[in-house]
């Protein structure tokens, strides 16, 4: 495939106004909670007040007798997937999903759905929830990893076994290269450290919401915000037993997902409530419900050991990563196991992940799932190693960078490794070259840290349709919810390839009935994959335009070229004809053979991994323990920035989520295993005044296997910040932090320790 060079571009790489922009700045864009229907009623969920309890009985009679109550759903209405047989949809196992949307045998976390009610008003639905009489037998709970893996831990699921015994370790994953024993035997310097991170929430501002109408003909329509309308259709079908062909899922605008809206919570409940009541049902989670019952990402306990020669050559790396899955199996162990050592050429690697269930809400994907956890441990150990060896930390990384053609421990052979370029971009940046004043005022210390990160990126199934309108405009339909500007990128590509003005292109997102199957918006795949199918669709449209022009000119289509938005004769031999613009050909479409348009559906291949290197300056108030980020620069290879603003936006947003993870965000539980900070006041995400400008250094080293050279962007930026900030805090204070978040109480606690006890 030809890679388009920047010099030829009119639209690709420019900062156009996004197609969905005007609606979003005027309040007209319809998000999941903005839909209403005639005759609509409201659904609410009753949730477990206990962290772990047997559900002995559920008596709904009083609730059902309440005037205004129209329907009730409990676990017996949800399709039961027996625990002994896996039924997968993508990476989700329906055995766990059916138990996550509604507690079955037991309530497994504080907030686990027990029943759902639909009533004529939200207040009546809430009152009905209070009238449901549930008898529980409260069981001992395990919240933290150590509590869940100790020998006498309360066992969440009798069907889970590890090493032949009932266990809360639900699964393991191993990646290895070479011989780890031999590797450490060769090492002259070895550093081994143990790290902890807390579960953090994706923190999208839009709570989960849906409206579902189950009509008299047995057909259901779902309006909801998700990262994949096809996932909504398939998963709702599996969990309710309503055939996929009877469900149409219409994607609402999505108010943030970051991975967590790649699964569903409310849609099957609302569908069943609608089916039972004969009325459209709307359900909207409160923030409390979002925090208590939707996926954060895992908390973790990791040990990383790295061995190197005195010259800085890394010879061995070992990682052991315990990740909390929440109440049902499925933590993102693939992230730390595969990504942690992937950027480095290390001959001997052993990376092992453990998936640990505990009495928390089931985790959901969060931006580069699991990778920041692994990078936190690995990149902090590398910092310590660089210090011990007396090598600049970026130089150490550069010296050990993986190379094109190498095989990673997780199995892939790299087509293109652009890690060194990200390191050099930071080494050569004015930020890294400018010395930092480390003691600006009494009580204030400053430090600088660096770290790198890796994310797999992904291809997968995408569909597109490109149609010309009678008045010569272009309508592009894709199947991917747009979380951060993918429509803007697709509009740039389409205008470029068709040689038309940008404002003549509209890009819309089809529902499950109007566009072919398209996999989730996730894995940093959408711009990569949809640009590929849109490009091929446009190529087909151009083929049709050439045929139409050839027909009008009565020449061979081979003798027609398409250039700058018009068909022209290929050369003097083809004949002398004035150009026929796209607009002219669209107007003549019916007389030359019918409507012009084409679609392409592909399982896209050729995604290259993302590499990122970051540098950060922090300032610590040593008395108050407050860490502030002063300056942040993030370099990443994005392949090609179709729309630079939204590429920078992905990097800036990912970095600030990483800052929250490093400094302030964590789930807090009380002694009864109940979540103690299920709100935005006590769960402290970065606000505008907490952060500086985030400089995104966008490197464009085209992916040779993509028509525009695109690589995924969205996930790699959240991988380095945890370690970069921890390394900067160390540079400021001379103390290492092995646990996140580095919040004021934790910083002051470490500062109070005698240096030797560190």
């Amino acid at each position: 495939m030809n890679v388009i060079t920047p010099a030829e571009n009119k639209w690709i790489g420019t900062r156009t106004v996004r197609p969905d922009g005007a609606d979003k700045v005027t309040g007209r864009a319809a998000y999941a909670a903005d839909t209403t229907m005639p005759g609509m009623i409201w659904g609410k969920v009753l949730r477990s007040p206990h962290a772990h309890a047997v559900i002995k009985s559920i008596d709904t009679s009083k609730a059902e007798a309440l005037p205004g109550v129209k329907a009730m759903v409990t676990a017996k209405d949800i399709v039961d997937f027996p625990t002994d047989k896996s039924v997968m949809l993508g990476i989700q196992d329906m055995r766990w999903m059916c138990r996550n949307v509604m507690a079955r045998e037991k309530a497994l976390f504080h907030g686990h759905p027990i029943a759902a009610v639909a009533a004529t008003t939200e207040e009546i639905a809430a009152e009905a929830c209070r009238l449901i009489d549930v008898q529980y037998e409260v069981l001992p709970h395990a919240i933290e990893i150590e509590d869940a893996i100790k020998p006498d831990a309360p066992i969440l699921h009798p069907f889970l076994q590890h090493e032949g015994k009932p266990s809360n370790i639900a699964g393991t994953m191993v990646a290895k290269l070479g011989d780890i024993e031999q590797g450490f035997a060769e090492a002259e310097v070895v550093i081994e450290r143990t790290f902890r991170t807390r579960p953090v929430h994706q923190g999208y501002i839009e709570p989960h919401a849906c409206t579902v109408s189950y009509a008299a003909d047995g057909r259901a329509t779902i309006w909801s915000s998700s990262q994949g309308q096809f996932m909504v259709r398939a998963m709702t079908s599996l969990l309710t037993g309503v055939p996929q062909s009877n469900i149409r899922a219409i994607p609402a605008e999505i108010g943030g997902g970051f991975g967590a809206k790649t699964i569903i919570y409310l849609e099957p409940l609302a569908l069943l409530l609608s089916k039972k009541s004969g009325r459209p049902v709307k359900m909207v989670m409160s923030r409390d419900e979002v925090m208590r019952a939707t996926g954060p990402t895992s908390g973790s306990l990791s040990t990383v050991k790295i061995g190197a020669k005195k010259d800085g050559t890394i010879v061995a790396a070992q990682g052991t990563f315990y990740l909390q899955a929440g109440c049902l199996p499925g933590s993102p162990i693939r992230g730390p196991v595969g990504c942690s050592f992937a950027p480095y050429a290390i001959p001997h690697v052993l990376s092992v992940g453990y998936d640990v269930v505990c009495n928390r809400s089931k985790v959901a994907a969060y931006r580069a799932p699991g990778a920041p956890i692994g990078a936190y441990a690995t990149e902090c150990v590398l910092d310590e190693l660089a210090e011990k060896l007396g090598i600049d930390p970026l130089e150490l990384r550069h010296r050990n960078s993986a190379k094109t053609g190498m095989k990673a421990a997780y199995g892939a052979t790299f087509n293109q490794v652009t890690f060194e370029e990200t390191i050099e971009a930071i080494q050569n940046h004015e930020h890294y070259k400018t010395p930092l004043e480390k003691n600006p005022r009494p009580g204030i210390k400053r430090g600088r840290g660096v770290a790198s990160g890796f994310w797999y990126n992904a291809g997968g199934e995408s569909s597109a349709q490109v149609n010309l309108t009678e008045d010569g405009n272009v309508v592009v339909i894709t199947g991917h919810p747009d979380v951060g500007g993918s429509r803007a990128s697709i509009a740039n590509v389409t205008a470029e390839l068709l040689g038309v003005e940008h404002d003549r292109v509209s890009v819309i997102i089809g529902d499950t009935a109007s566009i072919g199957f398209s996999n989730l918006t996730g894995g940093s795949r959408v711009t990569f994959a949809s640009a590929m199918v849109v490009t091929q669709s446009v190529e087909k449209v151009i083929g049709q335009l050439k045929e139409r022009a050839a027909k009008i000119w009565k020449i061979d289509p081979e003798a027609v070229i398409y250039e700058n938005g018009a068909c022209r004769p290929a050369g003097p031999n083809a004949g002398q004809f004035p150009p026929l613009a796209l607009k002219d050909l669209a107007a003549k479409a019916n007389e030359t053979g019918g409507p012009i348009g084409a679609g392409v559906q592909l399982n896209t291949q050729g995604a290259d991994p993302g590499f990122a290197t970051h540098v950060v300056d922090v300032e610590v108030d040593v008395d108050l323990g407050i860490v502030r980020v002063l300056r942040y620069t993030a370099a990443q290879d994005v392949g090609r920035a179709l729309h630079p603003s939204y590429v920078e936006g992905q990097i800036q947003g990912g970095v600030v989520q990483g800052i929250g993870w490093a400094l302030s965000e964590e789930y807090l539980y009380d002694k009864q295993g109940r979540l103690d900070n299920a709100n935005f006041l006590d769960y402290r995400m970065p606000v505008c005044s907490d952060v500086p400008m985030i400089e995104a250094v966008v490197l464009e080293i085209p992916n040779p296997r993509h028509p525009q050279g695109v690589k995924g962007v969205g996930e790699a930026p959240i991988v380095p910040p945890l370690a970069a900030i921890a390394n900067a805090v160390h540079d400021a204070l001379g103390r290492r932090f092995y646990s996140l978040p580095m919040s004021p109480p934790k910083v002051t606690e470490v500062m109070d320790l005698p240096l030797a006890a560190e």
Partner: protein
Amino acid sequence: MARIHVTTTINGEPMEFLCEPQQSLLDALRNNLGLTGTKEGCGTGDCGACSITFDGRLTCSCLVLAVEAEGHEIGTIEGMAQGETLHPLQRKFLEMAALQCGICTPGVLIAARALLEKNPDPTETEVRFGLAGNLCRCTGYDKIVRAVMETAAEMRETAS
């Protein structure tokens, strides 16, 4: 419970509605009046997605009872553009890509307008503190802060 009749002004238009005594103004705007541009992110006044102006003052509409709107002037995102003419902040947000998912955008725009009305020449720090009540999880705030400062500069130019 008897519903209460409220007479108010929304985006300059006289408006009447019936509401429950316990209903929040946010809920009444969205569900009774169909003004769904104002968003609910938390319901506890922490995220700013429901920002409105109440007699010109920046307010979280989730923390105001609907009945309190009686006799007052409410400003929402739906009133920010004049017909086809976007407010300079709205235009600048589009030009500078100061939004990604867009769910926080109505609240951020209302808060930014309130800030610039009080302080037409804010420093970066003043913009950051002026918007500290509005959570955005997508952008990392960088492009929002730049767009607000750029708009302020442009509006000062136009005014002078």
